[in-house]
């Protein structure tokens, strides 16, 4: 797994601090070309992984990458599925079954599953989940996707429902069908680690909000720090800047000071910001300073 991952929130109008800022960002990226320009800047700065949701517009990015495979020889996608808003809106409009029908590839797939009867419920869920994963992965055909994530809305919904089996189905399908590593995005890190451990999903890749102010770190910042320091998993830090609430150096010092954190995902809209963030991560990671976490508070 690469140390620095490039995120996509800035392209799709996601900002946790300000709706105006989110809209301004969305306006900055009206076209595929405007997104590619920033991805190019990141790529040229040596950031070769794009961690992105399976938003419809990513499909266009994928088309572009396939068409220009020469330029992006070692470019990798880490898809995060599903794009939650797409499903949530569909469930609102069509109900749970109607939404499933919408996202399944061929007509009748759901009908066949429903007809199978309750006795085969276990197989039905597995088959259904695999069809949904394949539908989301279709846009990445022929591209490198070494890690595939379950998006936090899905992870945390399943976690809350206690639908643990689904994590195993996801992990197995991603491994078998895509020869990729499964990853899980969550806002509830300690709770998820317990469940994954119980399922025997060893040394999982887990991406969570990890930031100095404890923003969206359910279970508490101490529990996160302890989990990161002591448990066997591969943590990826997201929301490191807490949408801009923490100054970059201070924010990255906190994350880079925790040596067990494998990767950091961040989004930026300009080459200057990308370069600055990358250099900060390099500098602070190299320092590998004595753990400042507990001492600092």
């Amino acid at each position, binding site marked *: 797994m690469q140390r620095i991952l490039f995120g996509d929130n800035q392209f*799709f*109008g*996601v*900002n*946790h*601090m*300000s*709706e105006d800022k*989110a809209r301004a960002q*969305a306006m900055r990226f009206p076209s595929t070309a405007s997104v590619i320009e920033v991805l190019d800047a990141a790529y040229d700065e040596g950031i070769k992984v794009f961690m992105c949701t399976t938003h419809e517009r990513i499909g266009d990015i994928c088309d572009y990458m396939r068409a220009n495979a020469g330029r992006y020889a070692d470019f990798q996608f880490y898809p995060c599925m599903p794009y939650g*808003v797409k499903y*949530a*809106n569909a*469930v*609102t*409009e*069509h*109900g*749970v*079954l*109607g939404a499933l029908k919408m996202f399944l590839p061929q007509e009748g797939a759901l009908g066949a599953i*429903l007809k199978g009867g*309750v006795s085969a*419920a*276990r197989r*039905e*869920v597995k088959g259904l989940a695999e069809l949904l994963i394949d539908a989301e992965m279709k846009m990445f055909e022929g591209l490198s996707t070494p890690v595939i994530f379950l998006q936090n*809305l899905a992870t*945390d*919904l399943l*976690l*809350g*429902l*206690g*639908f643990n*089996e*689904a994590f195993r189905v996801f992990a197995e399908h991603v491994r078998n069908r895509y020869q990729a590593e499964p990853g899980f995005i969550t*806002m*509830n890190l300690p*709770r998820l680690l317990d469940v994954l451990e119980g399922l025997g999903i060893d040394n999982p890749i887990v991406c969570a909000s990890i930031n100095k*102010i*404890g*923003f*969206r*770190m*359910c*279970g*508490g910042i101490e529990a996160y720090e302890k989990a990161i320091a002591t448990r066997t998993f591969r943590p990826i830090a997201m929301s490191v800047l*807490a*949408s801009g*609430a923490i100054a970059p150096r201070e924010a990255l010092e906190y994350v880079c000071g925790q040596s067990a954190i494998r990767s950091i995902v961040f989004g930026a809209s300009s080459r200057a910001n990308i370069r600055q963030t990358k250099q900060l991560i390099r500098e602070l990671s190299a320092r590998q300073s004595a753990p400042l976490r507990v001492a600092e508070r």
Partner: protein
Amino acid sequence: MTRVALIGLGKMGLSHLAIVRTHPQVDLVAVCDPAAYVREVLTKHTGLKGYADYRRLLDEEEPDAVVIATPSRFHAEMVQAALERDIHVYCEKPFCLDVAEGRRLAELAETKRLVSQVGYHYRFVAAFQEMKRLIDAGVLGRIHHFRAEAYGPVVLRANGSTWRTRRTEGGGCLYDYACHAIDLVHYLVGRPDAVGGTVLNRVLSRDVEDEVYSTFFYADGKTGQLAANWSDESFRKMSVKVTVWGANGRICADRQELQLYLREIAPQAPQFAAGWNVRNTTELTKPVWFYLRGEEYSAQIDHFIQSVEQRNPHTLCTFRAAAEVDGVAAMMLKDAQNVGSIGAARAPLH
């Protein structure tokens, strides 16, 4: 531990289920939905007990509290059945389509001193809570006007057909979207004494309005405007924003931030400077034990559970408060007919 049951496994039901089930003081005893597939998959894989018939669930499980997240037309009978069995009730919004029925149920809950709460989750958004605190403290001085807006992408094509697109079942932009804005207005500045100039227009839907506009009037001279449009996909998801003008400035809040402009420093809140002040969700929002879609969804469930444990019927959003929202929605429907807008029952303009 509070023993909780949940009825309705649609979008809101599943979301509530995930949140309720992780609550450290809750024992989730059973779920209910007449639709077999979702219910059976859930019970099979999560160890939950499932019922197709909610009355059977209530009788056999005898829960302390119930979460009702069904389409609105079922609310009244389900709430009634729960209250009759002395069960505390959390019910999704809009509360009751029949205003008189909503008021009757509010009274029943009050008489029995049962905890009642309705899912107007914006009351649990930290920025709106801070906004209310500042308004109540008099930071803005006398309030003279407000604007409450709700926009988002629900109906983006013609021919959608679910309960949300049928007025008789609680569908339409008024019940689905505008009610959130109405409730926030009630929470922040109180219930209007009259409404006027109400417009309920169809944009894409066949049977219900897709946009709602209205002016609210108050006996003290204050006025406000309400705008809601659920066919606006320029918003990634539902967005609610309220701006309030007072003698000493203006305050504006949405889920992410609070913006306060003060003409002069208010002694009640000296931490805010004259001119612009901004507070973001990152500093205003209190952590929750479990996060799914926003801290407010967890916070409202926690508020309900704590209220049940303390037998405190005065929740932040009681049946009484929700019935008031339904009452204003009814006033707006009536006003829209007088105003002569297209109206839900009339033919669309061409």
